């Protein structure tokens, strides 16, 4: 980073004002990043609250991809994932909030900003990676416990809990996937992709992206601890927990590009 800053400092600026201005802005940004000591290697932390950690979880995992840091002008700065097998490859990261796995995503930002005031990420696995043979898929897509079958792909979010003397599960993934059988992949995206594009305001690098187990437990309690693993539209009791995602049961997408109404994730200092 320091070497890069020094190189930019030596560069001769073009004479034209039209070109000069954006260059100056960029340099200011980069120098700002340098003087702030902000590294371009960043770590995004995921977690649950201390109170939620006392809830007996059997399994609590999710896939995330397409992470972007947002600067003060809401411009996205994509995070290039650093492959750290078995927890993330260059496209997808697996977060494990109950087991012995990784609770962070690490990567690099090619053009860092001085400051970030938001984060965007997608919960799930991109369609083109979601329906491959899990035996030959690169980690972290090789986990049998996070796969349904070729046809339906991966579980994007797997929550298995024991609360109030009930064992219950909430598993989110694509539904309405058409192919010749459960063991043949679909050729076109599923009717309900159920990928959640989450956007959270706040400084993301010194915060924790918190999965709101408290809200999920409350929704599950209201639903009498029904287990929801795919019948989101058909089983009326799944409505309360599924509503936390802000996904529509018919289209499997949110009303807007970002699921701004989602309530499952918050950013906390």
């Amino acid at each position, binding site marked *: 980073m320091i070497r890069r800053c020094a190189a930019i400092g030596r560069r001769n600026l073009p004479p034209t004002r039209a070109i000069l201005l954006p260059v100056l802005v960029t340099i200011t940004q980069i120098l700002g990043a340098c003087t702030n000591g902000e590294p371009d290697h960043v770590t995004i932390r995921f977690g649950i609250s201390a109170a939620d950690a006392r809830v007996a979880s*059997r*399994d609590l995992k999710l896939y995330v991809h397409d992470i972007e840091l947002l600067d003060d002008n809401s411009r996205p700065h994509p995070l290039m994932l650093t492959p750290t*097998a*078995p927890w993330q490859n260059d496209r997808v990261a697996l977060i494990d909030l109950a*087991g012995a*796995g990784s609770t962070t995503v690490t990567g690099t930002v090619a053009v860092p900003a001085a400051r970030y005031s938001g984060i965007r990420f997608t919960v799930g696995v991109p369609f083109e990676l979601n329906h491959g*043979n*899990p*035996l*030959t898929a690169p*980690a*972290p897509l*090789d*986990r*049998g*416990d996070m*796969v*349904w*079958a070729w*046809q*339906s792909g991966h579980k994007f979010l797997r929550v*298995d809990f*024991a609360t109030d*003397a*009930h*064992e*219950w*599960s909430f598993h989110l993934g694509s539904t309405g996937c058409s192919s*010749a*059988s*459960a*063991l043949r992949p679909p050729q076109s995206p599923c009717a309900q992709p159920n990928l959640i594009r989450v956007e959270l305001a706040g400084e993301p690098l010194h915060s924790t992206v918190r999965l709101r187990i408290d809200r999920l437990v409350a929704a599950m309690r209201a639903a009498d601890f029904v*287990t929801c*693993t*795919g*019948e989101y539209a058909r089983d009326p009791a799944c409505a309360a927990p599924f509503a936390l995602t802000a996904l529509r049961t018919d289209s499997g997408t949110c009303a807007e590009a970002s699921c701004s109404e989602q309530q499952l994730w918050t950013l906390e200092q």
Partner: protein
Amino acid sequence: MSATRVCALAATALIYFCGCSPGTPYHWQLPPDFPQPRVPAENPLTREKVDLGRRLFYDRRLSANGTQACASCHQQARAFSESRPVATGSTGQPHQRNSMALVNVAYDATYTWAHPGITTLEQHVLLPLFGDAPIEMNAAGHEAEILARLRADETYTELFGRAFGRGRVSFDNVAKALASFVRTLISFDSPFDRYAYYGNDAALTESELRGMNLFMSERLECAHCHAGFNFSQFVTHQNLTAVDTAFHVTGLYPDSHEYIRGVDYGLSAVTGNREDRDHFKAPTLRNIAASAPYMHDGSLPTLNDVLDFYAAGGRVVTDGSRPGDGRAHPGKSPFIKGFTLTEHERADLLAFLESLTDRKFLEDPRFADPFQNRTIGQD
């Protein structure tokens, strides 16, 4: 050249020429692109160990009183399980559990019905050999006697020599050879495999395909625990870098408020945790039609009974030491919530389960009894 290096070279040459060579590497026959099972570094898989292990597996002299071999309870025609609900040891003690099928166990992440700590076959084979609760082969206290029998047999002198070097007849090597043989019991030639892993669309009938889709459906939830290529969550292989092992309560018995002596509580007997009571491993379903009866205590005689059991979300036990409603067990897996099946769907599901049978595996001469003139393991 340094003195150390000369010594190292000399030692290597000595090992090479004195016949202590590691043997011929064994290669599995796996479907295309299939991951290799893991093998412990201290016991590389060789043809010589497999040959020795096969003979030991079928040899009754491995039990103290010479009445029982591994194959007595693990019979090839039954996918290396047996038809009794629970096993009986060589001295007549009844086991609490049904003999598990030995199918693709090279891929298992843990062994036995409910033990998170037994993670290699080398560890596992010591249980039937030396276990005393119940007594199985009864080798404990009879080690010298059993090894003397093996040393007196010229065939074993040769087989141990080839596998481990001359004079290396020991229980450590018995365990390594048995583990090596069992590691070769690989079954990937069922109609299901030809459909799933060889891409042959015609390998399954319409009924079997409907049954497979039902099996994989969220309505039935079978594939949640019987997951992946081995139909069990407890799988590891060389490409897999993380393994999750989850034991489950199926609702076979009610929760016990008080500890009942003699009851098999599964995982909690190992962990000591009350909440682990009645948790067991979801075993593979490969060759399941050949390995009746079912469940950890063999208490369900047929696959139809198993479907009834899961359709009801567990069962009500009316007799024995644990009467009560297993369906209401508080630790029961959330995936066992019950379902209804039409008669057609039931037939399809059974057809699918039958399509997991690999006939060649059940008759493969490489896995058969090498003692030509003795019948063993028939009941």
